[in-house]
Every structure is written in structure tokens, then in C-alpha cells.
């Protein structure tokens, strides 16, 4: 009995600690300014205002930062998906010399410490006139998500029995048709999950966006903009939290869509490659 009560208490503590920062962010975003600045904070929403969201959305460049982030993350993921699907097919379905070495290369590439490559990529971008372009950022994000995409798609492909394709081929499909009509529909959930996770990685990326977009402030992405909230909102914490909430929203939606896979699939994928 005592064991059960203490377990329940411990569970609640873990829950509160996990959730509190996010809860506080959302709560602050909806709180009227006088409540935010009150001497005693309120922990439950007493009165709700959308004023801070208005301030955040009205901030200069808000929509172009959203557009930039969407373009860069979306472009990177689409590119990674196409390139990775080809490679994953070769690895999961064909037999060739060097396959194992290739898989090992992808595994190693997945562990790249990108933080150590900030300087050379800045220099390369500068030399090739790619500095301050969203293209460069798209390419970097594409490369950051590519190894993960190959590994995960290969896993999803390997889980689809080859017999299905062969049966389709016996029934008169060409190899390409068999892939399009049989494998692709089965692969679609895997493609979706993989690309959404790639999207989150690119959406959240800060270090390269911070280094590669310098002169043209309109070309910044949301994370860089948000990191300098002091310049935009000063000490207006309500607006800052509203901007954070809006930034987190797509990520949260993706997590909700993928809820089942988040705990099982991705943990397995991340740990066991």
C-alpha cells in the first residue's frame, strides 16, 4: 500500500517536471500582461488573452521567417526522401559488392558531429557565393537528415516481404511496376514517419542557420529569430512565449500524428540503427 502511494507520487513528480516548462510557456502566452507581471504568479489560467499571439504575429518578418523555415525544412526532407529511397532500395533489395561498406558508411555519417563542421561549411559557402542563401541551408539540412533517412527506410523496406514483389512480377508486372503498385503503398506510412522526423530535425536546427545567414536578416529561419527574442520583444515575455508556442506547434502536431511510432519505432531505430 505504501509502495503504491509512493510510486504514484513519484510518477506525478516525474510528470510535473516533464510538463511544467511547456505548460508554463503556453500559460504565459495566454496570460494578460498584468498577470505575468504580478508579484505572485498564477498557476491556472484565470483570464485568457490572445494579445501576445497578436504581438508575435505582427512582429516584423514573422511570416517570412515561417516561410523560410518551411521552405528549407520541406526542401531538405523531400530531397533526402528521394535520394534515400534509391539507396535504401539498393541496400534492402539488391545484392552487390560493397553493400556492407556502404551501410557502414551511412552508419558513420549518421554520427557526424556537425557542430565541428560549422567553420569549414561557412568557408565553403563563402567561397562558392552560397552564403546568405536558403539553398545552402537546404543542402546542409538535406545532408544532416540523409543518413537517418536511409537507415530508417531500409528498415521499413526490409520489413516488406520480397515475395509480394515477386508475386506481382509473376502476375506480369515489371520490376518498377511491382515496386510502385505493391511496395510503395506499404511503404507510405514509413515514408511519412521518416520524413516527418527529418522535418523536425531541420525545423529545429539553429547552429548552421545562425552561421550561414548573416547579412540578409529577412532570410533568417524561425529558430535564429526566436533565439534573439530580446531584440524583437525586449522584456515582453508574453509575446516571447507566444512566439515559442507557435514555433513548437508544428513539431507537437507531428508527434501527435506519430504517437505510436514515437516510443517504439524511433527508439528502436535510433538505438539499433
Amino acid at each position, binding site marked *: 500500500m505504501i509502495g503504491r502511494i509512493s*510510486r504514484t507520487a513519484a*510518477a506525478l513528480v516525474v*510528470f*510535473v*517536471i*516533464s*510538463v511544467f*516548462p*511547456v505548460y*508554463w*510557456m503556453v500559460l504565459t502566452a495566454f496570460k494578460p500582461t498584468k498577470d505575468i507581471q504580478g508579484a505572485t*504568479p498564477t498557476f491556472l489560467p484565470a483570464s485568457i488573452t490572445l494579445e501576445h499571439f497578436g504581438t508575435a504575429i505582427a512582429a516584423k518578418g514573422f511570416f517570412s521567417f515561417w516561410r523560410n523555415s518551411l521552405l528549407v525544412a520541406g526542401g531538405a526532407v523531400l530531397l533526402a526522401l528521394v*535520394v534515400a529511397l*534509391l539507396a535504401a532500395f*539498393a541496400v*534492402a533489395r*539488391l545484392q*552487390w559488392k560493397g553493400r*556492407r561498406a556502404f*551501410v*557502414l558508411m551511412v*552508419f558513420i555519417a549518421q*554520427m*557526424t*558531429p556537425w*557542430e565541428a*563542421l*560549422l*567553420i*569549414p561549411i561557412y*568557408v*565553403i559557402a563563402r*567561397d562558392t557565393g552560397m552564403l546568405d542563401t536558403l539553398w545552402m541551408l537546404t543542402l546542409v539540412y538535406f*545532408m544532416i537528415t*540523409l543518413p537517418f533517412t536511409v537507415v530508417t527506410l*531500409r*528498415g521499413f523496406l526490409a520489413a516488406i516481404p520480397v515475395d509480394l514483389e515477386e508475386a506481382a512480377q509473376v502476375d506480369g508486372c515489371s520490376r518498377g511496376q511491382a515496386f510502385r503498385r505493391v511496395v510503395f503503398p506499404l511503404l507510405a506510412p514509413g515514408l511519412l514517419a521518416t520524413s516527418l522526423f527529418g522535418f523536425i530535425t531541420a525545423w*529545429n536546427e539553429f*547552429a548552421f542557420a545562425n*552561421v550561414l545567414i548573416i547579412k540578409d536578416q529577412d532570410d533568417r529561419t*524561425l*529558430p535564429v529569430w*526566436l*533565439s534573439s527574442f530580446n531584440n524583437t520583444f525586449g522584456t515582453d515575455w508574453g509575446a*516571447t512565449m507566444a512566439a*515559442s*508556442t507557435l514555433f*513548437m506547434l508544428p*513539431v*507537437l502536431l*507531428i*508527434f501527435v500524428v506519430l504517437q505510436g511510432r*514515437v*516510443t*517504439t519505432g524511433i*527508439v*528502436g*531505430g535510433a*538505438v539499433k*540503427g
Partner: protein
Amino acid sequence: MTLLAERPVRATAPAGPRRRKRVVLPYLLIAPTLLATAYLLLYPLIRNVIISLQEFGLPQLVRGDAEFVGLANYARVLADPEFWGVVRRTLWFTAINVVLIMVLSTLVALLLVRLNKWLRLLVMGGLVLTWATPIIAATTVFQWLFQSRLGVVNWALTALGFEQYRGYTWFADGEATFGILVTLIVWQSIPFAALSLYAAMITVPQELYEAARIDGAGAWRVFSTITFPMLKAMFGLITCLEVIWVVKAFVQIWVISQGGPGQATTTLPVYAFQVAQSLQRYDLGAAVSMLMVVLLVLALLAYFRQLYRQEREA
């Protein structure tokens, strides 16, 4: 997914012109991946090595006429006591973070195993929410939580009777900032580690626990004689991953403190960036980041060894 034992692919041996196509096809399919990796990963890495062997400051960046100076940059970095201070700080930072992450995650995972379905779903939901929080959103919220005048942490500490925290400016103090960064990174890292450990723990056969309990073993004994030994490889794997992630943690530190106040939170990746960006000594920055890569490769080798073991046991 297996790294060592590739799934056997059905051998096909079609005759005639198709055969040639089969031989070329896989290489065509992997060509885009290889090209991208060569240009966007391998080339920057090699370029980093080259820059670290040159004299490469702002003039060389503009004119593009850097000259090789051998290992002079490395010699200069390694002779600099400031660099060794940064290395010590990085190791200390990594040790504190990883120990806290592993201990707390293990406790959370053990708790999850023992909860009823609804509480478990609740806690897992909370962990997933933390996991889903973007780093930049988290850094922003933590700055708000620890804000001096209106921050909820100072309010709570003052309400608990710690008067010295009224209006306390956390980010002006080195150790306090260090502590906040550790809290932030541990908070962000626990979901992955705890959920992975939980997923591994439920694979341990229940009979083993029952047998131990019948023999009168306590909770600690059950953990140290059954759970831990059974999941040793998994613990090793996650520890390696956490070490790698903490050593290269850059965004949290850069956004919250830029390595300051003073040098209090300057770890290796932050130092490399500071030297390159603020002092415009790209050569020294490249040398520091190569030394960091060496450190990470050591951790990575340990990780691959664990992965190899895990595959063999699985």
C-alpha cells in the same frame, strides 16, 4: 536491424543483357547518396583539416591565399592553458550531465515498469512532450523560468524562505548558469534514455524477477543481479550516445550564455566557434574542432563496440 549479418538477399542470376544492368543498377541507386556525402560531409571535413594546417584569418578568408604552416596551429592551441581549461570544463560538464541522465533515466524506467497502465501512459506522455520540445523553445522557456524579477523559480525559492533568491540574477553568475545548462540538458535528455531503457527492461523475462523475489531479494539486489547484467549492453549503448550528445552540445550553451559569463560555460564546441567567429581565427578554431572530433571518435569507437556486442547478443 542488423549491421553485421545482412539479410540474405535472394540471389538472382538472369542471363544475357539484363545481367549487366543488374550489376550497374545498385551503384546508380547509391550514387546520389555517395555524391552528397562526398561533397557535403567528406569535403567539409577535409577542408577543416586543411584550414587547421594553414594560417587562415580574415585576410586569407577574403583573398583566399592561405599558406600552410604545418602543425603550428595545433602547437599553439595545445600550449594554451585556456584550451586545457576548456577541455577540463568539457569533461566535467559531460561527466555531471551523463551521470545525472543515466541515474535519473534508470530510476524513471524502473518506475515506469512498476506503474499501472494509466499512470504509465501519463508519465510517458509527459516524457514525449519534453522530447518534442524544440531546443530553441526550451532555451527560451528556461530563460523565462529563471528570469530574475518575474521568473517563477525565484518566486518559488523566495516563497520557500530562501530570501537571497529575491531578484537573483542567475545568468550573471558562472556557476548558476552552468547549473541551469546542466538542468536543461538533463531535462531534455531523460525522455530518450528513460524510454529506451524502459523498452529494454520489459524484455527481461518476468520469471527471473519472480524467482528472485521468492528468494527474498530486495529491489537493489534485483536490479544489480538481474536487470543491470541482462541489459548491460543497452546501458553501455545509451551511455555512449549521451556522452557524444553532451560533448557536442552547442546550441543550448550558445543561445543561453554564449559560453559566459566570463568563460564559465565555454565547452569545446563553443570555444571552437568563439575562436573562429569572434576572433576570426578560423585556423585555430578548425584545430580546436579537429581535437574535439578526435575526442568524439574515441567515444564513437566505444559506441560501435557496444553496438557490435548488442547485435551479437540480440
